[in-house]
């Protein structure tokens, strides 16, 4: 829309016609207070805090509902305006408990701030305040009625933002109350958006309430470890006896790819870090067959010696390595480098949750065709093939819903199940569960491929008419089907794609070459020259064993050692424990999982919240992970590998090129607690090394990644500032992958599960057990 010019407090401003005055002012740095106004939610004009004086208007006007017009003259801070705002604060405070010293929101409460700003410090109210006991609505949501100021943000974010409609207002007048849908409890997704958005301490979190004061925490913006969306989350941490504890997860940093959103896992499921089953000492299997705690020194020595021996006697082909979907890119990269250049094997793989390889092949030489998560918030049209984002990619579901709501984006859904996003869909079709491939073929013009109704035909017609389309597909599509889908998409004028995989760094694991046949950046192992030069050693040229083959080999006695990092294949793939009887098994994990329980050596590993590095979400958005918490006794997967390599007699400087003009890490790996003893520095000094850069500094490896994997060569500064950078995926180098086994095993996680990790989150377990969660779509949306 055309720009209009208007004045605010004598300043000349311009904004597009139709902009809300409150937004126009905020953009110009003029803060207008508001309780009820919340960007992108429906307008309420209920709190009356945003009143301003507009010339020629008889009364004060609410800036949250006024649109700017040409020549408008506004005063935002006159005595009259200030008095009006002060009166509103006084009125709310009349019935508001002044329990700020114990209130969870104390120190980050919008009502406190307003009281401070407008000086409503004189108490005029002498009556008894209405009291109602606090209610627990679910394991994670508590409601304190007297503190509620009725801004309706929670009701709106639940209905409009989440499409869950679990909150409503009951009664009227002063008796009005926010009410959950089940009378005294909630039946919802337990996303906690209502808590985040509450300006006061009326809605509080079951994991955080009464634990601490906000100013006693450090707030670290990092990436959620759970699903493939990689939402930005802010962890509130504080030092405790044995490390640094996470007390809260929320989304106070709204700059992330998830916008306002965070789901139940991102918000509450950080507690696995404090699970009592957490390993803090290395374990080594003793002669009596039992695992017993030993010193790090011993465990590393023992492992290194054993691996070296096996490599030197039986060759690298007798060793297998399985990597993780939840470690950083640097760790995944380091692990494959370790496997290939130190252990001398291509037997390396990971639990694959989507066929990123086929996707990379299909997009080869097609610049700018991969959609970032942000693209879903602004796309004009979206086709969703398979997958249930509400359950598996909640961040994506949020972006799609928001886009449909605010921009009337057109969503098309083709799925074998009644996924909830159908409610936002312009058109949808139900496919047979094995019908995706034929449907894609049908979309591409092969009429005989799919027996559909008129509906299917019109579905295809509207999609083909889209000028600009995003196609997101789930693990239902693999290999050649992905190629076919991409071919179809490229026949339309302007299409981008997203391949939906399951965990925080599933995409990174594939990109970083945790594959038996492909090096980082999907370069065939047969074409390893550049890598060999950089690594300074020859690399095996034959494709190695994949994950299934490794266990088969182990069962046949052909795998002498297996090194597993952050994965639980024994449970995930139902491996018979006896298959590993004759294999030297090393596991790096947080817990004594089914896999770790069979190991000869178990290293207690740090999780994603306890380390720094980068991760790549399933859309190819690269983000920085910052160290938030810490646990005495554990080490990062990165450090463990480096130490093992060191003790194996290999040169850690070759593995982590921290001497070669690498750029400094901006202190990112230090973590939140400045007082933390710097083990790294101690180690460096002990080894007569320059303490400037540590061999445990993932950024040294990131440097190498950027050199060798062109797609990852994105501007680094922006990343370090905590922003996401979309990969240049067209730079992926890959040969034809015909006939390749995809080995994709979808995780099938829902909103409340998170693979093995989810089992160690007491909060998630509690939420699941509480019967307050919405598993099926709500019957009807209110209109």
């Amino acid at each position: 829309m055309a720009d209009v010019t208007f004045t605010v407090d004598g300043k000349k401003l311009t904004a597009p016609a139709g902009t809300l005055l409150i937004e126009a002012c905020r953009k110009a740095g003029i803060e207008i207070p508001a309780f009820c106004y919340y960007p992108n939610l429906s307008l309420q004009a209920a709190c009356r805090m945003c009143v301003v004086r507009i010339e020629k208007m008889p009364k004060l006007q609410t800036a949250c509902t006024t649109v700017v017009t040409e020549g408008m003259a506004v005063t935002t801070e006159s005595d009259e305006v200030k008095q009006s705002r002060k009166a509103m604060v006084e009125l709310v405070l009349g019935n508001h408990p002044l329990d700020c010293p114990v209130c969870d929101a104390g120190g980050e409460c919008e009502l406190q701030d307003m009281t401070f700003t407008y000086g409503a410090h004189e108490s005029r109210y002498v009556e008894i305040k209405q009291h109602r006991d606090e209610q627990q609505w679910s394991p994670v949501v508590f409601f304190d009625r007297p503190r509620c100021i009725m801004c309706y943000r929670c009701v709106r974010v639940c209905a409009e933002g989440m499409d869950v409609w679990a909150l409503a207002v009951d009664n009227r007048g002063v008796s009005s109350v926010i009410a959950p849908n089940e009378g005294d409890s909630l039946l919802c997704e337990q996303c906690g958006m209502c808590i985040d958005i509450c300006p006061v301490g009326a809605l509080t979190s079951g994991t955080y309430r009464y634990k601490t004061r906000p100013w006693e925490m450090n707030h670290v913006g990092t990436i959620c470890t759970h699903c493939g969306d990689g939402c930005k989350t802010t962890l509130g941490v504080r030092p405790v006896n044995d490390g640094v504890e996470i007390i809260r997860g929320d989304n106070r940093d709204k700059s992330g790819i998830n916008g306002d959103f965070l789901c139940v896992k991102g918000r509450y499921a950080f507690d696995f870090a404090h699970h009592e089953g957490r390993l803090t000492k290395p374990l080594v299997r003793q002669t009596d067959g039992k695992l017993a705690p030993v010193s790090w020194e011993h465990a590393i020595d023992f492992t290194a010696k054993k691996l070296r021996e096996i490599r030197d006697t039986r060759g690298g082909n007798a060793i297998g390595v399985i990597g993780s979907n939840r470690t950083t890119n640097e760790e995944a990269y380091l692990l494959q480098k370790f496997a290939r250049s130190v252990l001398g094997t291509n037997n390396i793989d990971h639990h694959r949750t989507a066929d990123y390889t086929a996707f990379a092949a299909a997009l080869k030489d097609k610049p700018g065709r991969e959609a970032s998560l942000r693209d879903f918030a602004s796309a004009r049209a979206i086709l969703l093939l398979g997958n249930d984002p509400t359950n598996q990619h909640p961040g994506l579901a949020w972006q799609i819903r928001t886009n449909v709501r605010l921009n009337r984006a057109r969503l098309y859904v083709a799925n074998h199940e009644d996924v909830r996003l159908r409610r936002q869909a312009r058109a949808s079709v139900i496919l047979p569960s094995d019908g995706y491939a034929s449907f894609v073929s049908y979309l591409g013009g092969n009429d005989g491929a799919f027996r559909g109704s008129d509906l299917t035909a019109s579905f295809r017609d509207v999609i083909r008419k889209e000028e600009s389309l995003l196609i997101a597909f789930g693990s239902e599509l693999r290999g050649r089907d992905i190629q076919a889908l991409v071919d179809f998409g490229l026949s339309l004028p302007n299409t981008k794609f997203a391949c939906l995989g399951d965990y925080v760094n599933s995409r990174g694991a594939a990109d970083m070459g945790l594959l038996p046949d492909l090096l980082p950046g999907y370069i065939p192992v047969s074409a390893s020259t550049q890598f060999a030069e950089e690594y300074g050693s020859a690399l095996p040229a034959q494709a190695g064993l994949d994950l299934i083959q490794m266990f088969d080999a182990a069962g046949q006695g052909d795998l002498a050692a297996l090194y597993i990092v952050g994965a639980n294949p024994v449970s995930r793939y139902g491996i018979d424990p006896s298959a590993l009887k004759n294999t030297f098994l090393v596991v790096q994990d947080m817990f004594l999982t089914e896999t770790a329980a069979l190991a000869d050596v178990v290293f207690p590993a740090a999780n994603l919240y306890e380390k720094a590095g980068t991760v790549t979400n399933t859309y190819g958005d690269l983000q920085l992970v910052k160290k938030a918490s810490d646990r005495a006794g554990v080490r990062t997967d990165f450090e463990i590998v480096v130490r093992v390599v060191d003790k194996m007699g290999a040169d850690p400087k070759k593995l982590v090129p921290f001497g070669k003009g690498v750029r400094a890490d901006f202190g990112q790996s230090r973590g939140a607690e400045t007082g933390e003893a710097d083990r790294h520095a101690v180690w460096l000094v002990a080894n007569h090394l320059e303490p400037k850069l540590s061999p445990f500094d993932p950024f040294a490896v990131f440097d190498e990644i950027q050199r060798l994997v062109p797609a990852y060569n994105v501007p680094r500064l922006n990343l370090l500032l905590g922003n996401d950078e979309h990969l240049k995926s067209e730079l992926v180098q890959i040969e034809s992958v015909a006939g390749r086994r995809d080995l994709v095993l979808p995780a099938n996680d829902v909103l409340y599960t998170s693979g093995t990790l989810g089992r160690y989150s007491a909060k998630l377990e509690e939420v699941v057990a509480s019967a307050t969660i919405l598993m099926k779509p709500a019957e009807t949306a209110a209109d």
Partner: protein
Amino acid sequence: MAYLTTHPDVVPVVSYRFGKGATNIDRYIELDGYKAARKAIEMGPEAVIAEMKASNLRGRGGAGFPTGMKWSFVPKQSEKPKYILVNGDESEPATCKDRLIFEHDPHSVIEGVIIAGLAVGAKMGFIYLRGEYRYLLNIMEKAIEDAYAKGFLGKNIFGSGIEFEAVSHTGAGAYEVGEESALMESLEGKRGIPRIRPPFPAVVGLYGGPTVINNAETLATVPHIIRMGGAEYAKIGTERNGGTRLFCLSGHLEKPGVYELPMGYNLKRMIYEVGGGIPGGRKLKAVVPGGSSTPVLLPEEIDIGMDFDQVGKAGSMLGSGGVVVLDETVCMVEFALRTMRFYQHESCGWCIPCREGTDWLKKSLTRVHAGGGVDKDIDNIQYLAENMLGRTFCPLGDAAAMPTIAFVKKFRKEFEDHLDGKGCPYKHSLQHEAVLA
């Protein structure tokens, strides 16, 4: 049974058929019924609106907005269907006039709705009655049925090829629903929370379509205007205040009742002549001129004509036409308290100043009336009311604040007499516990 009271000064326009059995459709037709609707079809929309403008009819719901002008705001072209909505929520304390219309002359409302529909191009009208008016709903339903049977409503009204449907609808107890945008919400099956304006109902109203909302009396007057001509109707009242209105006289009067009097009728005369004066020779203390939301007038302020402009000049409002007369025995603090209890009970709770302000004022007034007040309470009451005024989401907050400010300003001495443990000095006053919570 509600009835109209007579007096020689009464000018029966709206009440012309009252007491004559006009609930019966045939009887209504005999008494010139549905002639105006036929005439309006012949006249066409522009002429109808011109006639309405000429009549100087101002809305009888309270705000006194010129009806012809309101209709002319409805866009000619609209993608969404247009609607007519009759506001029969009549809940303003001291107001009981629409009740008479529904009871005695339901077809005049239907006819008014049809004419409004013709004028703005609406094909459907809703007649919303407050929930307590169940017996009137039954009357209204029957009247609508009869009008359909005669072909006055339906696909082809009066054989003109024009379509018009009418539906009667009940509320379920909520004063706020009388506010026009809350009324639409309620009719859409929601809580009676007002809407943000703009857009105004004439542009975006019921179900998103342009909507004319008028008070029942306003619409019942319409057929008479079309019948007698706008200019003729305008002559009855004063300048810019055409016609008559139903005044509801209540309180300390010999002859309380509903009287149809010309706009601009002198208030003093209304009280002493029409209403028969104050019983027992007691003295007049105050008059609330237009329903509980309007600021109180002192005896020396009542020698005024009862039209929107003159009452406005006197510092109050003509409002809904409910004239409440208070004699010298009334405790003004108790009266102020009872008024505030009403608004506290009826606040929808949407915005801070109304929700919290009415509650706070009710509590303070309760305490002051009971003798628990201190000096600064009086200022505080005024402060609160003044800070609500003009700040609320809808006019209910003003309706609570305006009379309160007037009570404190005009009867401050009486508030002071209650302070410091003295309690209410008026013996008759009932220290009756406020139970409506």
